């Protein structure tokens, strides 16, 4: 588990007998900005809560910062070095911004006052304003400040930019990128915003129905995968569905779109044997990769 900030093996969790995670394997290397993607209900939030000890796992193993998490005390020790930004961005409504900072600071011996000051300025958060009066965007910024200033080695974020306007989103993404670039912080964040993930993440994992369907370095994935688009002059032949080397296939009228990541030339050659009127090969975006893997045919 060297240099892995998060590792899970066979992580499983069910709610009332309904599986949410089915043997999830994750490996997040130190220093990565790791995008954790999936549809609603795919198991993203369940995974984050399992990592932080908010849920109990049914099966599997978790390692955080190279240490196994087998008891509450293991989890408490790991959380000293971890920051979590929740999806709802709920903080204590009975405190103001300054009180929230003063409350959080003593829990973390590695608190960095210079980052606290920097992000107070960047996010323009007034110290005396009550948390109950903050907009969702400001609550997100305060939560990010509390997460980043604690000097955590791992930041776990659940939809960190949800509810933010484009300017605030950009500020947050920039802050995350700066943090990752400036030290050994690893950022693990779940999101539905594929363009944001593509903008700042160097690795991605897509889960669907509680299992990993894609995992790897984003640039490698984008260079490995190709879309092969076949256009036929009539109904596409049934044999197109059984072409070897094809990961996913979509049909729309006379057009068939194939996604492949190994032996692209072989796939193209075999596709030509089906006599399409045209064959085109395209690079794929993260969005296409995501949609093909979670929708399939």
């Amino acid at each position, binding site marked *: 588990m060297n240099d892995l900030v998060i590792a899970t093996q066979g992580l499983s969790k069910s709610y009332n007998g309904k599986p949410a995670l089915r043997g999830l394997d994750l490996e997040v290397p130190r220093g990565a900005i790791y995008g954790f993607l999936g549809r609603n209900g795919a198991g993203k939030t369940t995974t984050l809560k399992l990592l932080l000890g*908010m849920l109990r796992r049914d099966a599997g193993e978790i390692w955080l910062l190279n240490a196994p998490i087998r008891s*509450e*005390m293991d989890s408490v020790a790991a*959380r000293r070095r971890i920051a*979590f930004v929740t999806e709802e961005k709920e903080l*204590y409504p009975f*405190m103001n911004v300054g009180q929230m900072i003063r409350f*959080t600071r003593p829990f973390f011996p590695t608190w960095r006052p210079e980052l606290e000051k920097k992000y107070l300025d960047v996010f323009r958060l007034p110290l005396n304003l009550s948390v109950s009066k903050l907009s969702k965007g400001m609550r997100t910024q305060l939560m990010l400040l509390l997460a980043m200033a604690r000097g955590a080695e791992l930041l776990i974020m659940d939809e960190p930019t949800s509810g933010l306007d484009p300017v605030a989103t950009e500020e947050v993404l920039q802050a995350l990128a700066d943090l990752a670039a400036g030290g050994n912080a690893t950022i693990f964040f779940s999101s539905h915003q594929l363009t944001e993930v593509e903008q700042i993440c160097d690795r991605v994992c897509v889960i669907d129905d509680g299992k990993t369907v894609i995992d790897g370095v984003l640039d490698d994935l984008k260079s490995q995968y190709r879309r092969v688009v076949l256009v036929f002059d009539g109904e596409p032949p049934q044999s197109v569905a059984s072409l070897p080397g094809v990961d996913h296939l979509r049909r729309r009228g006379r057009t068939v779109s194939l996604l492949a990541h190994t032996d692209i030339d072989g796939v193209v050659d075999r596709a030509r044997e089906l006599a399409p009127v045209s064959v085109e090969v395209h690079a794929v975006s993260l969005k296409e990769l995501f949609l093909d893997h979670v929708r399939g045919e």
Partner: protein
Amino acid sequence: MLWYKAWLETRWRFTFLIGSILVVWLMLLWLPSLSSVPASRQWVGLQLGSVLLYMFAAIYLAGGGINSQTLYAVTSGFHGSMLFTLSLPVSRRRLLFVRAGLGAILTCSLVVCMAGYILFRRAEPVGALQSLADIARAVVCTMAVYALSVLLACVLDEMWQFMGACLIWFAVFLLGSRFAPVARFSPIRGMSLSSHPHSSATPWAAVITSAAVCVIFTCSSILILRRKEY
């Protein structure tokens, strides 16, 4: 800092309780018709009022803060600020200890002040030792009510915790008024001070039951909170 957070969460409840007591006390002082009520009936009224106050304080101060959930939050699957709290490097046992501990301290301080005032108002003077024993008894028995309320706060939303605790103690009161054995062990009996005008024997059965209930419910709360999923 957890004590500071717990105080911020509880301070308005505590202020509300103090304010309510003051209002009732001032009203009683200014009611001219009260002076015509015989002292023994005044004493019974004071006892009944104080027991109700102890129970209300115990139930009210135990609510909120442990789960930090609103009804909206529970029904929509959110957990309010609890997820932020759980992400801190603090065990759940310590979270419960601090939150319930502060509520217990505030409840005890109210009981001690009220019981002390009532003893001061007692027509027949009693020894300091007896007064202290009476106050300690009221505190132990009130803590049984508090421990049950904390347990309910660990499993129920705030509104249901309050209503559930009220219902349970109302049932205990009714059963106690019908069946003597229940009354003997009931914490409610232990909460009231010695009868007027002569001191009765200390209700040890109620005190021991209350202490046992307190330990059992506190341990149960810890176990429930440690296993609870958010």
